[in-house]
């Protein structure tokens, strides 16, 4: 989901018309609503490769606010469209236009050490995570935090379980939603560091295959999510 997009008037009307259903005071990132509205409304979706992009420097101070503004509407949309996405089985390939370009060799390096430090600090202060994530996941995160940077890899199934657990916690209001969304930041940085280290010297084909593998992991974890969504008292630890 890139920041550049084109949409029909019908989709625009649907996406922003649905925002009127958000509770008063909910901050909504406009980009976060478009993809769910398009998919649930039966609109045709495609992706276009527009060439290499220049990314702005990471604003570390406001990363948690940005994540909260994007994840919040996504989780709310999950709640609203639960009847729709729970019926879907499998996935279809989205038509693509253009060709992906290889990243330039002078693309700079991601500051993975800072990301790993943030993740390790979050793992040391697991008070909030313990209210949302099951004990097994917490144990895996603690083990992961003790690994040296060269071995730091977050498995796809762990990341998928974390995302789904937070979506469930958001729906069940386990803790304040704002606290829940902001506490994702160290986990996101841990996953990002793992991804960056793994794909450091990967080409476009490897990146596409890696993304596909992650998408398959989300699909594989979906039945468990559906069960816990429908019967939270029975399945949630």
């Amino acid at each position, binding site marked *: 989901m890139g920041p550049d997009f084109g949409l029909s008037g019908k989709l625009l009307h649907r996406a922003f018309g649905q925002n009127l259903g958000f509770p008063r005071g909910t901050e909504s990132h406009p980009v976060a609503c478009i993809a769910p509205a398009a998919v649930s409304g039966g609109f045709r979706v495609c992706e276009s490769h527009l060439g290499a992009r220049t990314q702005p420097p990471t604003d570390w101070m406001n990363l948690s606010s940005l994540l909260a503004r994007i994840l919040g509407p996504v989780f709310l949309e999950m709640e609203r469209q639960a009847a729709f996405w729970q019926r879907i089985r499998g996935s279809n390939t989205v038509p693509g236009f253009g060709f992906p370009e290889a990243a330039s060799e002078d693309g700079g390096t991601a500051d993975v050490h*800072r990301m790993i430090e943030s993740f390790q600090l979050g793992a040391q*202060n697991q008070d909030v995570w313990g209210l949302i994530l099951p004990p097994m996941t917490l144990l895996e995160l603690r083990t992961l935090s003790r690994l040296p940077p060269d071995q730091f890899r977050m498995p796809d199934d762990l990341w998928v379980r974390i995302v789904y657990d937070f979506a469930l916690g958001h729906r069940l209001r386990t803790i*304040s939603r704002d*606290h829940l969304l902001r506490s994702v930041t160290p986990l996101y940085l841990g996953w990002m560091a793992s991804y*960056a280290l793994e794909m450091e010297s990967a080409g476009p084909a490897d990146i596409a295959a890696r993304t596909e593998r992650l998408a398959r992991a989300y699909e594989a974890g979906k039945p468990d999510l559906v069960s816990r969504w429908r019967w939270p008292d029975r399945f949630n630890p």
Partner: protein
Amino acid sequence: MNKMLSEMASLLPGVVALVAALLVSAVVAWLLAAILRRSLTRVDFDRRVSQWGFPALAEWSPAKSPTLLATRTIAWTVMLIGFLIGISAFDAALTSQFVIRLFAYLPNVLAAVVVLAAGSIVARFLARSVLIGAVNMNLQYARVLSVKWLVTVLAVAMALEHLSVGGGIIRLAFGILFGGIVLALALAVGLGSKELVSRSLDREASKTSSQNTQEPVGHM
């Protein structure tokens, strides 16, 4: 002897009234406890108490059940009220004054309970907010920022003030304790992070000037 017997006889109606009041209050207490137990069990009160931020309540409760604690509290409160009503039937000036003063003190007790509960909720919320913010800002001493204990100490002092317990000693002790905690935190943060702040500012300044604008990782 006759005087003693007549004094005892004059107390008999009061005793009968006291026993009757205790019996009625026992029946009412049993009914209320049964209704409350059913209602709280239906809404899964024990689990919700932990979620609302009062896990310690389960530890203090008999059989680790806040539901049992609530029902027993209500039952004994009703019994106590019945006992006080029965006591007032003796029509003795001293007991009447005692009952009046006790009922006049009840609002202070209720206010203190409300202040403690609100203080506990606020302390937990603030502690969580500060912890999440500090971790997201990569502050290594996130745990040291003991906002929870500051708010809890404040709530306990306010509750004791409502209960009129301790008087000036409590105020003085609170002032010394609270002031000491704040001073210690300020010194720890100010002196301990002096070099850290300086290094952090130097690092940010050198990063900004030499950072490549093309960063391969984009956070949406």
